[in-house]
């Protein structure tokens, strides 16, 4: 019986990363390394206005004065920033006019990833911006959305066509001085998605960006800016994958969300970057700054994330609750297996009166991985009647992994109610055996248990993503009970 369980274990943990293929396509790359010339070159490649170049240069100079943060519960090997290529673009016309202009190899790639770029092939409810390496390949359903006054395009295009909007909101939530990786991103960001929902408009479909890293030795530094004007609503999805390689690759993105009065933004992520192999070789370093501001009264921002990929994850999608009666939510499932490390959580900053926040974090650790929740709940003096509820649960598979919780609470107002609950549990061999005895295989048993555990978060995802996420959880974890 011993042998049998080992066999299942091996089969599953050796399971191939499904998205590890490389697309053979001509890629335009700039020289390796980082200096002011490179920053200028990236800006020139994109024909950017002067103000944006200035922004990049200021960020770059600031970045040079900064050190990589070391407070996270992560062991990060030294990153050689001069060995990275900061811009790589699949060679094709910059903005394909129609599907016929999109390189067939690119079409095939996204099709293989389950993201066909042809609108008629998509579920009609989802518009996609497909980003490979440093550029947006195609944004679907733009015309349909434009009828409602919704702008959904690549970041580069937004800079060209809606400069005043970009200038108004860029770095308004995450200034380039915010942290090391935000500064780096501000200097070298290449593309990403831009989205603006006008006053009173409920976005009729899910908007999504699919990020794909393809080229070797490159980093991906995308920038996403999402603005929901007064009383607007949008649900936004983000997915990511990368080829299987022995070297680590850096992904340092910035996402900014602005919710004006009465607006609501739901932001969902299924992060499945290549996690590295069983021995911990390769994989993506996912160092991302995501933050939203509930700027207006009664606005709401809700983050939902399912994190299964990346060798190292450093990520804290946060909400600044500035408007009175605004609401922030964070629902997270973070899975680590083999040698993966994750330090992830959220910050809920209560500035306005009657602001409410909810944090539900479910960490699942297996193999030799380390999984940390880190969260800050801050209530300032003026934020009367703020409420927070936090729940942090950790599930351990096997006895060689680690789960950690670092909750920080700073409250300067007597009327605040802040609750924190935490649990740690293990999938026991007795639970597996109980399932086995009812005819359920070890793989399926783990799937049942993990999905049951994560259900509260998965249920927050849009339907299509929920199905995907459920499968992903199972693939990432099966057989990790030792």
């Amino acid at each position, binding site marked *: *019986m*011993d042998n*049998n*369980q080992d066999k299942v274990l091996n089969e599953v943990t050796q399971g191939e990363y499904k998205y590890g293929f490389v697309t053979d396509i001509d890629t335009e790359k700039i020289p390796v390394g980082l200096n002011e010339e490179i920053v200028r070159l990236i800006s020139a490649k994109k024909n950017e206005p002067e103000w944006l170049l200035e922004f990049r240069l200021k960020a770059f100079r600031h970045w040079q004065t900064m050190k990589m943060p070391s407070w996270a519960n992560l062991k990060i090997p030294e990153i050689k920033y001069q060995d990275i290529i900061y811009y790589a673009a699949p060679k094709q016309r910059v903005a394909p006019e129609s599907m016929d202009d999109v390189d067939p190899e690119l079409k095939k790639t996204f099709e293989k990833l389950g993201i066909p770029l042809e609108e008629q092939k998509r579920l009609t409810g989802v518009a996609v911006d497909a980003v490979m390496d440093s550029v947006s390949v195609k944004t679907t359903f733009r015309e349909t959305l434009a009828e409602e006054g919704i702008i959904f395009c690549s970041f580069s295009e937004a800079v060209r066509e809606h400069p005043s909007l970009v200038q108004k909101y860029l770095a308004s939530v995450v200034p380039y001085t915010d942290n090391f990786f935000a500064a780096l991103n501000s200097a070298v960001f290449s593309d990403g998605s831009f989205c603006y929902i006008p006053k009173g408009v409920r976005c009729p479909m899910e908007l999504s960006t699919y990020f794909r890293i393809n080229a070797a030795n490159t980093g991906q530094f995308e920038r996403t800016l999402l603005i929901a004007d007064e009383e607007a609503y949008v649900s936004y999805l983000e997915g990511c994958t990368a080829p299987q390689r022995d070297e680590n690759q850096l992904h340092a993105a910035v996402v900014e969300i602005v919710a004006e009065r009465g607006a609501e933004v739901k932001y969902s992520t299924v992060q499945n970057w290549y996690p590295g192999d069983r021995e911990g070789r390769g994989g993506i370093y996912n160092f991302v700054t995501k933050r939203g501001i509930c700027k207006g009264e009664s606005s709401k921002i809700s983050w939902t994330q399912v994190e299964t990929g990346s060798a190292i994850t450093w990520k804290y999608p946060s909400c600044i609750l500035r408007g009175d009666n605004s609401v922030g939510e964070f629902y997270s499932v973070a899975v680590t297996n083999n040698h993966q490390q994750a330090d992830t959580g959220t910050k809920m900053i209560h500035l306005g009166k009657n602001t409410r926040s909810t944090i539900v974090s479910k960490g699942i650790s297996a193999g030799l991985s380390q999984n940390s929740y880190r969260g800050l709940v801050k209530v300032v003096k003026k934020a009367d009647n703020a409420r927070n509820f936090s729940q942090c649960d950790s599930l351990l598979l096997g006895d060689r992994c680690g789960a950690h919780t670092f909750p920080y609470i700073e409250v300067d107002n007597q009327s605040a109610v802040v609750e924190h609950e935490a649990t740690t*549990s293990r999938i*026991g*061999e*007795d*639970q597996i*055996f*109980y*399932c*086995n*005895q*009812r*005819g*359920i*295989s*070890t793989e*399926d048993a783990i799937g*049942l*248990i993990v999905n*049951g*555990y994560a*259900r509260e978060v998965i249920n927050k995802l849009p339907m299509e993503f929920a199905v995907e996420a459920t499968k992903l959880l199972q693939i990432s974890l099966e057989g990790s009970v030792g």
Partner: protein
Amino acid sequence: MNNSFLLQIKDLKATIDNKEILKGLNLEVKPGEIHAIMGPNGSGKSTLASVLTGREIAQVTHGSVSFDGKDLLSLSPEERAREGIFLSFQYPIEIPGVSMVNFMKTAVNEQRKHRGLDPLSASDFLKLMREKKELVEIDSALTNRSVNEGFSGGEKKKNEIFQMAMLEPRLSILDETDSGLDIDALRIVANGVNKIRKPDTSVIVITHYQRLLDYIVPDVVHVLYNGRIVRTAGKELALELEERGYDWIKREADNVEA
């Protein structure tokens, strides 16, 4: 005639943590029979249940077990379950977050797959659940909860019998199912077992006490002591044990050994 037995155990020896617990056990169960296995604490009763269901802690060092002509020991725990071996656990396990409905649906459909049948539709499955719940008199609310989570001792045992009804096993092993039950719960559980039984399904009742056997009447009673079956007789043996305790059996067995 090998084939006339549903279960045939020959000279079975097994260890737990390198300590020999079963020391040459023989047992033959025909289809439709109810066997009671009684014995003092530490005699190897639960180890026998572990060996039959493939639980890892028990290592088989010698002997053979055939189930319906198949080499049982070569099958994984889940294969044994799908072949129709069911264990009613002495201490049923809690699985938080996994609903009873989801759990049972997975189990039932795995078994159907094993038999080459299509999975049940959601409505057929729920209908089956309802029927079986009524059959074993289990509170409807229990099956809306997570597997055994927060169940009382009695509820857990009833839930085992409910699962047995759902899976319709060919061989059910009741491991101390009577422990911790009051007399009403005991009656409900025993009635459930009797209603589930079919003419060709067999039951092994592992118990210390006679009282469960008032309701589930055995064809054969075995006394397990020190890793071997030391006495086999009809149901009257259980009554005799109830009256006289185990000491006389221990003395007899120890004398034989000495």
